[in-house]
């Protein structure tokens, strides 16, 4: 099953990956990281299709995609 890994320490909470995900697998976390921002969290692993749209849109290159 495809999956993504998001580096919560460098995520700046811009939300571009959340907007880009066609399956809405990503959402903001309830907690905040050291930057004081809620990071993008991989919340629905069962729906991920490994398209890599989140990776394409992430301005901080903090997403890795496995397939």
């Amino acid at each position, binding site marked *: 099953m495809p999956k993504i890994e998001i580096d919560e320490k460098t995520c700046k909470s811009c939300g571009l990956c959340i907007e880009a995900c066609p399956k809405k697998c990503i959402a903001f976390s309830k907690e905040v990281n050291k930057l004081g921002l809620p990071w993008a969290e991989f919340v629905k692993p069962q729906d991920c299709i490994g398209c*890599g749209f989140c990776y394409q849109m992430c301005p*901080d290159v903090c997403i890795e*995609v*496995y397939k």
Partner: protein
Amino acid sequence: MKKIFSRPESLTNAPFSYCPGCGHGIAHRLVAESIDELGIRERTIGVAPVGCAVFAYNYFNLDMTEAPHGRPPAAATGIKRTNPDKIVFAYQGDGDIAAIGMSEIVHAANRGENITVIFINNANYGMTGGQMAPTTLLGQVTQTTPFGRDPKREGYPIKVCELLSSLEAPVYLERVAIYDPKQVLNAKRAIKKAFANQVENKGFSLVEIISNCPVDWGMTVMDSIKWVKDVFIKTFPLGIIKDKTR
């Protein structure tokens, strides 16, 4: 399970200092991926600009240098002429390329220097807090045009690609955007082509990337993406402006 997308080798592990949602990060990654895919990392030299991307030398895992404001095409010319076997690129913003460095880019293009220029157009001076740039749209509110840019007072936006296309020497000029995954993949194709042109000794290539600047535009990230799509690219139409390689 295989890793299909991860940080390209041509980027260091240093976190970017850009604002959340800024297009510079995507542009950096596309440049790095193109260099990786062409297998030219060991012989590529980059020239960082003055502007938001001034620290680009910290982010690219390449030999990098830094030129005074607007001068990367001149510095890149010198590097390329003394090291013709190296791949040299200049990374510039719109204040850098279209204002103080207008002379350098026009003459480097006119000489047909075999270099690649990556030009980030975000319609304002980002690093200094969002003042008007030559590329600012008509009516756009910035720190120095609080009632919107008025053509009678500040002139019209300068379209660098169209301006350079009137010259004989440049071989490849294209304007791309990065507001959605489809556009990002298209931008990647353009950037890779601009580097491939240099590898094949074809001549001067420039890719203009229409980027968003949410903080200085005073918008949320999503609103800035929408503004690029609905307003920005109406003034700066996307596409190949000139391609002599075909």
